[in-house]
């Protein structure tokens, strides 16, 4: 069974530039999560989707971050414009009422 797929794996951008991350969850998993992981910290939730609906986005900085999951499968997380403090690993996870399985993450560096 294929795991959670994320791309790109690494991204380096200048501050104020836009950036987008893509996630394909495990087949059949209706719930998709985006987590942010800073160095030396555990992951922190940004947003949770149940199918196409964002049901938990209170931690998403909506002035610059946006996310979508149009057909209830793949998801995209966007930052525009990026700031230096956005440098981190962005993790996507999926679940189907039990354990959450994580992708490899996208490491973002903002210069």
């Amino acid at each position, binding site marked *: 069974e294929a795991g*959670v797929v994320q791309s790109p794996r690494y991204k380096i951008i200048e501050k104020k530039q836009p950036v987008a991350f893509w996630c394909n969850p495990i087949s059949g998993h*209706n*719930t998709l*999560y985006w987590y942010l992981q800073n160095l*030396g*910290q*555990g*992951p*922190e*939730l940004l947003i*949770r989707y*149940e199918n196409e609906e964002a049901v*938990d986005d209170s931690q998403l900085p909506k002035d610059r971050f946006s996310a979508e999951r149009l057909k209830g499968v793949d998801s995209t997380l966007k930052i525009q414009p990026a700031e230096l403090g956005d440098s981190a690993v962005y*993790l996507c*996870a999926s*679940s189907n*009422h*039990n*354990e*959450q*399985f*994580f*992708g*490899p*993450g996208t*490491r973002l560096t903002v210069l």
Partner: protein
Amino acid sequence: EDQVTQSPEALRLQEGESSSLNCSYTVSGLRGLFWYRQDPGKGPEFLFTLYSAGEEKEKERLKATLTKKESFLHITAPKPEDSATYLCAVQKGDSGNTPLVFGKGTRLSVIA
């Protein structure tokens, strides 16, 4: 506020030297406690879920236990390949899809 505290922050063991990692938590309405392993440059890898005090689960050299206030991850006769960061997380509510609240992790190094 829900809190998960892991200790120690880092642990260095000789190969074969057994030890335990601690995860203490404060959460109302705990549904489950999760352990993950994370290797450098990779996403967290699921290890265990514990749902009730007294529950234990084992996988190879790892055994996880749960009380009402904390969980332990016991590592018996570790090998260098057990070196990783071990993350503890709690889930509250009555749905298996609610988000996890993670601790900062324990960085384990096992020296041959």
